């Protein structure tokens, strides 16, 4: 742990580490539902679509979180409306709105003199600019997100697994999906400083996908995904510091490395594991060391 204490002499470094771990953990939890509901594209869309909201809030000097929230709600409602139109499927609706909104954000920010610097910090994050207040805000918003996930866990699970049953069982599916999109945007917003707009999707999708390779149980999957997300934040920032690479990219690359390791070596689902299992079974069926169940 000596390297940690060594870096933590600087408050900004402490803040950066805390923020990376927190964001990785929170995105890891909510990412499980993004992956299970097949909403990776929607997550990408939301992260881009809230961009103009953040820019407008920034230009007005208002809290960027509020701007992002308003934009997220607006966009998810618009996508809902557009995809209920018969000639537009859901994916196309998402695609149209997310690129359109993103372009609006870039157009707005290009009116500023400090255009390129501002744009860069939104797009790839600015982890060393995380203040103590930012950190508190991240923790508070993260706590709200986790609390809502905990309180609506049964509805989220029911809808993700069996939407038809859920509707017949009296769950207001639309309402819960809107709520989910709102907490998803909150998670995205607090990740922007750490990893930036472009890479945040990886925090939502990669740890959860890795966790899915390692377990068949939802609760375990959530725990593992949070752990992998937090660990990616910690190790990613450490590598970023030592090898002088962009923090967001470094965090995402660590998460991707975890995925690749699980993809090859996972005890049940790994590519190598399955290969070895088949070979051993064919050569010596009586010595099958991986009995089914």
């Amino acid at each position, binding site marked *: 742990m000596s390297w940690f204490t060594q870096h933590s002499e600087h408050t900004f470094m402490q803040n950066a580490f805390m923020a990376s771990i927190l964001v990785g953990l929170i995105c890891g939890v909510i990412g499980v539902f993004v992956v*299970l509901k097949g909403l990776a594209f929607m997550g990408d869309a939301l992260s881009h679509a809230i961009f103009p909201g953040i820019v407008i809030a920034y230009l007005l000097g208002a809290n960027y979180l509020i701007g992002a929230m308003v934009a997220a709600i607006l966009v998810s409602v618009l996508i809902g409306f557009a995809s209920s139109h*018969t000639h537009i499927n859901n994916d196309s609706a998402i695609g149209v709105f997310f690129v359109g909104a993103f372009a609006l954000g870039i157009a707005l920010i290009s009116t500023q003199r400090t255009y390129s610097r501002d744009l860069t910090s939104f797009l790839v994050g600015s982890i060393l600019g995380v203040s103590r207040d930012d950190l508190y805000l991240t923790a508070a918003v993260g706590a709200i997100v986790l609390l809502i996930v905990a*309180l*609506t*866990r*049964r*509805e989220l*699970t*029911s809808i*993700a*697994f*069996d*939407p*038809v*049953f859920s*509707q*017949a*069982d*009296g*769950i207001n599916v639309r309402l819960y999906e809107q709520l989910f999109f709102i907490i998803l945007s909150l998670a995205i917003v607090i990740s922007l400083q750490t990893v930036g707009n472009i890479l945040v999707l990886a925090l939502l999708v990669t740890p959860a996908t890795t966790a*899915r390779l390692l*377990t*068949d*149980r*939802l609760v375990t*999957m959530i725990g593992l995904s949070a752990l992998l997300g937090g660990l990616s934040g910690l190790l990613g920032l450490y590598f970023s510091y030592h090898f002088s690479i962009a923090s967001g990219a470094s965090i995402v690359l660590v998460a991707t490395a975890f995925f690749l390791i699980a993809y090859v070596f996972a005890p049940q689902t790994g590519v190598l594991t399955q290969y070895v299992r088949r070979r051993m079974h064919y050569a010596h069926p009586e010595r099958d060391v991986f009995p089914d*169940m």
Partner: protein
Amino acid sequence: MTAPEKSATRIETQDLSVHFEDRSALNAIDLSLSPGEIVALVGPNGAGKSTLMRVLAGMLPPSHGRVLVDGQASHGPNACIIYVPQRSAVDWTFPIDVTEVVLLARRKARSRLLPYGGADREAALRVLTSVGMEPFAHVQISRLSGGQQQRVFLARALLQNGDVYLLDEPFTGVDVPTQDVVVEVLRELASRGKTIVFATHDLHQAFTSSNRVILLNRTIIADGPTSEVATDANLRATFGGTSSMFDLVDLMNGTAQR
């Protein structure tokens, strides 16, 4: 079961129609379902069987007409009406085990602050036993066969404990033992005053397992006691001219065995 249950939910529809965009899915449906009936809803693909069930379950508002539950106009899902979706509606690779699927039925009964307790798990095990799935209580759902999946859905519906059960294609793609279990469970429910409706395009299953048949093709072609509805003319009207000869042979075999 202990005390006789007071469960007599009656469902009616009045001049019910459903349109999707410019296409008519159901037209002028008038029917009345009584406690203790086992109704087979029969028709070819695209006949509107699923649509009718979803309207009855309060999941789809009719374009015209209305659904009455115990004489009251129904708006939206009703806790006493249980809908069992087709198996294909679900992602069977989802990381969830058999007990957890069944426990989805306990959502409303438990505070969102508390985890499920021993009583919930006992209740889940009890319904799993009644469909012969208790050895699979902790098996991941992706390892189940089609028939086992259907039994899990049925167990979940039993735990929801309603008065009216609407089952969408419960016999499609399942093994014979499962078909027998499903029929047995449905008969037991009907004997306790529950109303059963199952959709099927399998005439044999429809005529051997029900006591009332509704032939549907966008509109009701025939509706009555199973023995009276099975006429060649009715089947031709429902399925079109070509299919009924084969189906009738099937049907005769089925009734002969019974």
